[in-house]
Each structure stands twice: as C-alpha cells, then as structure tokens.
C-alpha cells in the first residue's frame, strides 16, 4: 500500500491539541504516512516546544510558507507534484483550511480517497453562537434563539436589529458563509469523516449520507509519553489544570467554591493547592485576585506538552472544565484532547461539565468525579476529597479505550480498512 498523505497545519514540534492528536494516531498506526505540515508559524498554538520524534512509519514534510493561505496553496501544489505517490489523503482541522486543501484535491482528483478528520464543528461552532462574533443575538440563525417562538421570529424590532447587525458586521457574515461552505463541501466530497465524539457526530451529521460515512474516533493518550508516577505522598492535596480557559469555559464555579471553603476554613491553603497552567479569562483573574485565592490557586504560564503530562502524573487530581453551552445545544458537542491525556496519566479527574454529551459519558464511565456547574456541588466534592480523603474508583479497563494503540487499531480497521476495501472493489 502507498503512503497516506496527512495535511495538517499543526504537528509537533508545534504545541497544539490538533497536531498532537494526529501525532499519537499516526505513530501508533500500522500504515505509513507523510505529514504535510509546517513549523514556522505558531499562531493559535502554545508555541514550538514539543520534543517528539516521529516513529519510522511517519515522515514530516515541512512547508516553506509562513501563512495559512500560502500553506494551503503549497499543500495543493505538493499533492499535484506527487500525485503518483498517494491514493489516500487525510485532512485534519483545526484550522479549517486543511479541509479546503482536501476539497481542492478531491475536485481535481476524484479518485483519491479523502478522510476528513474534524476537531471542532466549523460552520456552527456553539462558541460563536454564544459570543455573538458570527451570529447576531437577534438573528434566527443564532442557536441561542432556537427555542423562541413565532412572536420572536416575526417581531419587526428583532428583524430591524438583526438587519442592522448584518450590515454592520458584513465581514463576519461573509466569513460565516465561507465557513459554512467549507464544512458543507468537506462533508460532501470526503469519503470518510472522523469525529472525536458521538455528540459531535450527531451535531454535525446533518443527513444520513454523512452519518453513514462517519466514524467516531476519540482523542487518545500515549502511555510512552509519561514519566514514572511519583508515589511519594504530598503534604497537601494537589489539583492540576492544564489548558485554556475563557469566559465560557470558566473557572468561576470552582473559584466560587474555593472562596466559600476559605470562608469556612482559613487554613485551606495548608490542605490543598490548585495549579493552573495556561490561559484564563480576565473576569476569572479578577475574581481570583479580589477574593484572595492566591494562596490556594497558583497560576502558571503554559508549559511544553511533555512537561504537562509529567505534571498530570504527579498531581493528585486533574481538573477538567467544559464550557456550558446549554443555551445553544442540549448536549456538549466537544471532547477535549486534554481529557484523554488526563486519562493516560492515571490521575483521577475532577470535572465539571454539562450533564449530557459524550464527555460526560466518557468521564462517568471512567469512574471520575463529574459535576455540574453548581459551585456548591463542586465545593461539596472538594470537601470530600480534601477533608475526607475521597478517592475516585477509576475504571482502567474502560479508560484503555482511549489508549492510542487501541484508537489507532480502530483507525486502521475502520478508516484505512474502509479505504482498502473500496480499493479492492
């Protein structure tokens, strides 16, 4: 079998969830890959700091371009020049431009088998509905308004505001159309779609045709990346959060719970410590500072990927936070790659997330502590952990489903296998 060409803007040494997910998948697969990527630009990533070497079955092809637009053209040109070397390509978002490359190649070479692997939804990302960057709060297309009735829809005031927003935000409207076309084209022309969780599959597969060619492959962890677990007991319970937080995916409920606990016990800092690595919203920072949480919650800068895995291993609990997107979706359509890394560390997870959706199911089945956004429920469980020594009863057998070896096996059988089956036909 020929090598498979993988087109991904992010790939190690760039520290980005998308590239790392791809890395773990390909390096544990039994097939051979060329990854067309770049290492010049670190936009939208955590820097160029991942010291991971490809295994012999994977080869990185570095683009010369520094911008996404140039990289997109270079990727298409690369494929044209090496057409005979590949029968199958795989594109990986984010960013979404990689699927644009896929569409262009597929249109030019219809016999090429195209696997489109999606990180987050592109055309209707719940975050964009909530923060109103691409959808007006008065627009009927904004999912925030999905449950509003005819009175709202027919309201002249709403129509007026919505029209005014569209005029004022022409670039956003244009960009939204571009994203919609990009995703629709990708889903239409590709031969196989990879989603990372079932909720996303339900959210994005708008028709049976797409559903039939889709496969759910969760994010994975690679056990070989972790150092030995430090078994020495800590003087206090250490919680760790690694990653990105914002106003939607917010630490606020946790901070409120800690504030409340601090009011009851001044010595909380002697019993527990929360280390946050990564970004946080300004609002959360203000709350943290105003309420004097500095002794319990330590804030740190981003760290390289492998270092973050070592930190996960050495913590007593890993904290996972999901955005509450209930206003636009009944279930959480996101599955953060970090959760898989947390799984791999063997450290129990303390999570608060929407109580419906795949992430909730995964964490629940894995025996982790899964809570709602209620600060009091969070406080209740922190109390049990910090004061009563509660330990999670993890289901390692279930967690093994997220092992990169097992996920890659499924990828080989269900995705590449499908391609090989078609080729034989």
């Amino acid at each position, binding site marked *: 079998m020929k090598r498979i060409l993988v087109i991904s803007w992010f790939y190690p040494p760039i520290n980005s969830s998308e590239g790392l997910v791809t890395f773990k998948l390909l390096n544990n697969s039994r097939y051979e890959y060329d990854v067309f990527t770049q290492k010049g630009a670190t936009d939208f990533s955590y820097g160029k700091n991942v010291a991971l070497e490809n295994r012999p079955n994977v080869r990185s092809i570095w683009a010369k371009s520094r911008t996404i637009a140039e990289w997109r053209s270079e990727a298409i040109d690369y494929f044209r020049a090496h057409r005979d070397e590949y029968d199958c390509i795989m594109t990986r978002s984010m960013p979404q431009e990689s699927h644009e490359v896929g569409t262009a190649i597929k249109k030019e070479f219809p016999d090429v088998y195209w696997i489109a692997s999606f990180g987050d939804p592109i055309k209707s990302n719940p975050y964009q509905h909530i923060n109103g960057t691409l959808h007006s709060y008065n627009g009927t297309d904004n999912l925030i308004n999905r449950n509003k009735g005819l009175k709202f829809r027919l309201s002249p005031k709403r129509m007026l505001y919505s029209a005014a927003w569209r005029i004022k935000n022409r670039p956003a409207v244009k960009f939204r159309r571009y994203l919609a076309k990009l995703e629709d084209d990708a889903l239409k022309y590709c031969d196989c779609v990879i989603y990372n969780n079932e909720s996303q599959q339900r959210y994005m597969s708008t028709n049976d045709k797409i559903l039939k060619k889709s496969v759910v492959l969760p994010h994975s962890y690679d056990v070989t990346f972790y150092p030995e677990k430090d078994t020495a007991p800590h003087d206090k319970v250490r919680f760790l959060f690694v990653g990105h937080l914002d106003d939607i995916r917010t630490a606020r409920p946790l901070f409120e719970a800690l504030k409340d606990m601090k009011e009851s016990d001044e010595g909380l800092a002697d019993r527990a410590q929360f280390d946050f690595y990564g970004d946080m919203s300004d609002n959360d920072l203000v709350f943290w500072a105003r309420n004097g949480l500095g002794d319990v919650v330590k804030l740190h800068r981003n760290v390289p990927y492998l270092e973050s895995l070592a930190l996960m291993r050495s913590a007593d609990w890993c904290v996972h936070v999901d955005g*509450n997107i209930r206003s636009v979706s009944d279930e959480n359509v996101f599955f953060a790659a970090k959760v898989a890394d947390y799984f791999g560390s063997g450290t129990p997870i303390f999570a608060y997330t929407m109580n419906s959706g795949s992430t909730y199911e995964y964490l629940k089945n894995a025996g982790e502590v899964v809570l*709602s*956004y209620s600060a009091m429920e969070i406080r*209740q469980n922190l109390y049990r952990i910090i004061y009563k020594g509660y330990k999670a009863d993890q289901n390692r057998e279930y967690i093994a489903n997220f092992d990169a070896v097992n996920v890659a096996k499924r990828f080989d059988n269900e995705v590449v296998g499908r391609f090989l089956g078609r080729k034989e036909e």
Partner: protein
Amino acid sequence: MKLLSIVVPVYNTEDYIRRCLDSLVSVGDRSGLEIIVVNDGSRDSSADIAKEYAEKYPECVVLIDKENGGHGSTINRGLEAATGKYFRVLDSDDWFDTMNFEKFLSDLADCDEDLVLTPYTQEYTFSGEQVDYAYDRFEHGRTYTWDEMEFDENTMYFTMASSTYKTELLRECGLHLFEKSFYVDMQFNVYPIPYLKTVRFLDHKIYRYFIGRPNQSMSQENLTKNLPQHERVLQFIVDYYAANRETCSESQRNYLSLIFYFMYYSHIDIVCQKLKKRFRAYRLIKKFDRGLKKTAPDLYEKVDAFPYLRYSRRLGYLNVWLFNKPFSRLIDLGRRLRAR
C-alpha cells in the same frame, strides 16, 4: 437512640443516588445518623446502588425495598422504621452539603424543639445558578413558640426541604401521606402543625434541591394531568384545617391558612389559566369554591382578598368559562395600577 433518621425515597434515580448517599455518609461522625433508603420499586439499578451502601455502611444505612406506591408511601414506610429522635426527608436526586450538615448535626444534638428549620438552596445545575430560601425574619439559634411567630402571605412556609421534625411528633399527629399521588409534600407540611409547640431556626444551608433540566419544573401538560391529585391534596388541607380549627392557636391557624393560600392560588392558576376545556374549568372551580364556603367559611372569606377570585365569585365564575383571558388581563392591569 440515633439522633437523626433520614428517609431517602428512591425511584429510578441511578444517576443521582450516589451523590445523595455520599453526601450523607461522608460526615465525620456517623454514629448518630440513620439513613433509611426506601426503594419504591425502581426499575433501574438504584436499588443495587443503595444495597451497596447498606452493605458498606451497615451501622447507618438501611435499605427497605417495596412495591411502587409513590413518594408518600416511601415516607410512610420510612417513618414506621425510623428510630432517630429527629426525622427528615432527602429525595434521592437532591443532596446535603456535607460541610454544613456536619455543623447541623452538632447543633441538632443540643436541640429539643419539635421542629428545627434550616434554609435550603435550589440548584439549577444546567446553568449553575442557585436560589437560596431562608427564614430571614426569624432569629437563628432562637427557640420560638407559635405565639412568637407571625405569618403573612410573604412568609416562607416550612417546606419538606427545610424541616427536621421530632419523630415522635410525626407519629403523634398520625402522619400518613397519600399514596401514588403528587404534591404530598404539602400534606407533610400541614400534618404536624396542630401538634407543634416549639420551633428553632438554624442557619445551616444543608438541603440542595436539584433542578437538572431547564424545563424540569412542572410542565403545563403535567400540571393539568395531575390536577385531580392537586385538588385531592388541597381538599385534604381544607378538611384538616376545619377539623383542627378549634384546637389550633391563632398562629397555627394563620400558618395553615398560609399553606392553603399558596396551594389554592396555584390551583386557580392551573384550573383557570392552564386548563384548555373552559367549561370543565368553570365547573371545577365553582364546585371547589362552594365546597370551601361550606367546610371552612373563614378560609373562604380570607381568599376573597384575591381580586381574581373576588370578582369571579361576583360573576358566578362565568368569566372562567366565557371570557377568562380579557378578564385576567383586566385584573392584572388593575393590580399593576394599584402597585403604581
């Protein structure tokens, strides 16, 4: 003798029961605690989970398995089995704040009042919002007798989520809730009142009332579907009031009237505003109101203060049948103008 018996009614709550029981068994000193889990014929794995806890904590968790009979039946059964000095109910999808619960238990050990009240919180878990319900007009830590408590329509009545009664008192009042019926918590709220002498308020928010879905609160269809049960419980309150009117003090009567107002107000709302069959609504409200006049004339007079009811009575309730919408709007407009 145990200090506190907690009855946990369970019916198909496998997703929540662990949180509920964990919040109880996590207390430092479980010696004074008796947790009676009453499985009401669950069809999911709730009973197995409860059994697991009963085996793990035999000193404080008891499992009673029974056929399905509704919320009221589980409380009846729990009360039969309770051996604690005090008694309270915790629904299996709700939970206690362990930290506050420990403080509450420690304070409860020093109590000898008939009823101990604590604030509670409604948890809207889908949004993370919380709404606190507290008895702010009463002094915390103080023992009140009925004469020292004043009740008006703005007073929060003693809910199941906030009440810890003396077990002996509940038995003395003959508490027996309706089986296979909704709204039995209102029955629970009125039964002990004529027998109640002393009340203490403690400022420990322990009860977390779980509201898990945006539309969990009674949907319109459910409200109208369960209307006969609502009416049955309301009738019970009227009859209970009438039967105990003579033996109750003025404060107790005021308190019972308060519960009646609350329930009658929601009854009128369901019947007159939500019921689609207008003629049926007319007949129902007319029949009930006439019954009320006969059984408890003082309550009948008191609810005349509600403008909707007052004018409906003057019109012979014809508005309910024939022109309810404009009539309600007119009343609402009058209320707003008055407020201005």
